[in-house]
């Protein structure tokens, strides 16, 4: 069953074709890697999928919570999140001056079942719901082992934990599709391995379909079933990790640049 499909998805910034004619088809429960050198257009794809950028051309179809396909071209980001697709940001966009718990609580926003009036006058619905919300949020934090930091300000967390909090916050929206933009960036190899295990775990536990952006190719090879490779906004390959590893185009476009960068 396809949960996410793009048809000829393209976007132009001035004269730059940042993404060109992208056709993606993601199946329910898949863990797909989206790789490519810096500037290839990966984050831009996420921004179009989540409504931050409007595509210049093409369509995006997403399955909502009732398994109906929706064309999300005209939707606002919050409406797309409401359909069940959530994301993290490559340049961490936490609510820095709020507590860790409040960050998750805000992620839980779509599941708040009391009205603002009930909050203003502290009616019973407020207490009942806030108690449930806090329990659920702490439960999610526990998965990533940052539950004990609930009352700290998000900006005071170490970098790796900030990345984890981004994932927790996205999970709090109760998505069925999760888009992770370089979740391991800036982590050391040990933290990265743990994170990959966690990603596998949440995929099982919450029955998620995940698209993972990562520019470290070795890393994605380990956990993704399928990999899409972008270069200069175009899809140059798509296949299993083994296929990708031996694809000459990928080796040329991608690894060539890695070598350049390393040099």
């Amino acid at each position: 069953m396809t949960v996410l499909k793009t048809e000829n998805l393209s976007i132009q910034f001035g004269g730059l074709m940042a993404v060109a004619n992208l056709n993606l088809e993601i199946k329910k429960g898949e863990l797909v890697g989206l790789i490519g050198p810096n500037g290839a257009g990966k984050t831009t794809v996420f921004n179009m999928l989540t409504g931050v950028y409007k595509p210049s051309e093409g369509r995006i179809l997403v399955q909502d919570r009732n398994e109906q396909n929706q064309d999300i071209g005209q939707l606002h980001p919050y409406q797309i999140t409401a359909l069940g697709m959530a994301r993290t940001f490559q340049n961490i966009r936490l609510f820095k001056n709020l507590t860790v718990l409040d960050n998750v609580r805000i992620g839980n926003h779509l599941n708040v079942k009391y009205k603002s009036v009930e909050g203003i006058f502290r009616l019973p619905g407020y207490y009942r719901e806030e108690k449930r919300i806090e329990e659920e949020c702490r439960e999610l934090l526990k998965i990533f082992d940052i539950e004990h930091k609930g009352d700290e300000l998000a900006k005071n967390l170490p970098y790796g934990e900030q990345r984890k909090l981004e994932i927790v916050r996205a999970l709090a929206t109760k998505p069925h599709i999760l888009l992770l933009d370089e979740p391991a960036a800036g982590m050391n190899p040990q933290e990265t391995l743990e994170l990959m295990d966690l990603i596998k775990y949440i995929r099982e536990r919450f029955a998620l379909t995940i698209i993972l952006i990562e520019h470290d190719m070795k890393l994605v090879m380990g956990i993704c079933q399928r990999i899409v490779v972008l270069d200069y906004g175009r899809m140059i390959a798509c296949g299993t990790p083994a296929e990708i590893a031996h694809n000459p185009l990928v080796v040329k476009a991608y690894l060539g640049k890695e070598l350049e960068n390393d040099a």
Partner: protein
Amino acid sequence: MSKKMNTVVSVLIVASILIILNVLVMLRVIDEYASQVLTIAGINVIIALGLNLISGFTGQLALGHAGFMAVGAYTTAALMMKLHLPTLVAVFGGALMSAFFGFLIGLPTLRLRGDYLAIVTLGFGEIIRVLMINLPELTGGPAGLKGIPTFTTNFFWRPVLSFALVYLTMTLVVVLLNNLLNSSHGAAIISIREDEIAANAMGINVFYYKIFAFTLSAFIGGLGGALYAPFFGYLSPNMFNFQKSVEFLIIVVLGGMGNLTGTVVAGIGLTYLQEILRFLKDYRLVIYPIILIIVMIFQPSGIMGLFGNKEFSLTRFVGKLAGKQLSGEQSSDKAGEVQ
């Protein structure tokens, strides 16, 4: 002592303070002049609290709260003088009218990004003032509107009743705003200030919450103005000029953007300061801007920034006095901890 007990004790303390102050006003221990200054301070605080909601908590700069104050004041006066409505009904009506104006201004403006709201509210404040000058049947025109019925005509009770009503309203506004801001809906509002793109990605209808916050902000601003009409008994368009809007902004900035405690402290302090400096005549008008500049340079997070931007929480204070509050309990006691 349980958390519930702390709350009960806190409510009792607040009630006692209000009653004691009122008795002091009644016995003229707080003389008529002082009680008048305090009442004006209370009204300024109410309006500044409204401004803080949209500018401090939602992160959208607004520069026309004197306009909302005017709408509230003149509407209340009209409801009392033309329709002979009871004072409190008229006050509520004034606040509602102001909220309606806020909604109308917000609808086209808050869709746009950036500082459009600041520009539009600035224009709004001036337009309202010019309107007030040119609608003499309703407002008495440039000469002002005289003969607005006051809270009471009784010479002895008038300062007491004004003081009591204003401070009761102020307390209610503080408590209810604090409740809102500590709820999940309040968290949504604050998240817009923190990062609009991330808030949107969390499923928050940013436009809806901006409209909500701005309409409520206008309601509170109008409420302050509405109280002003029967307190003073006289209104003139010049009371609601741009200078006045800036005064509210300075109260919010000095107290700390996004901090209710700070607004109360700074609002009362600055109103008093302005009275003390009356001997400076027109030079006193430069005091506010100078304070604003000094704060922005040396202490941009305001007075409460010196205290880690925490809200003063009476329940927490009572808990500490009782000495039995467990640290775990404290951390889950969110009352007043907005930041």
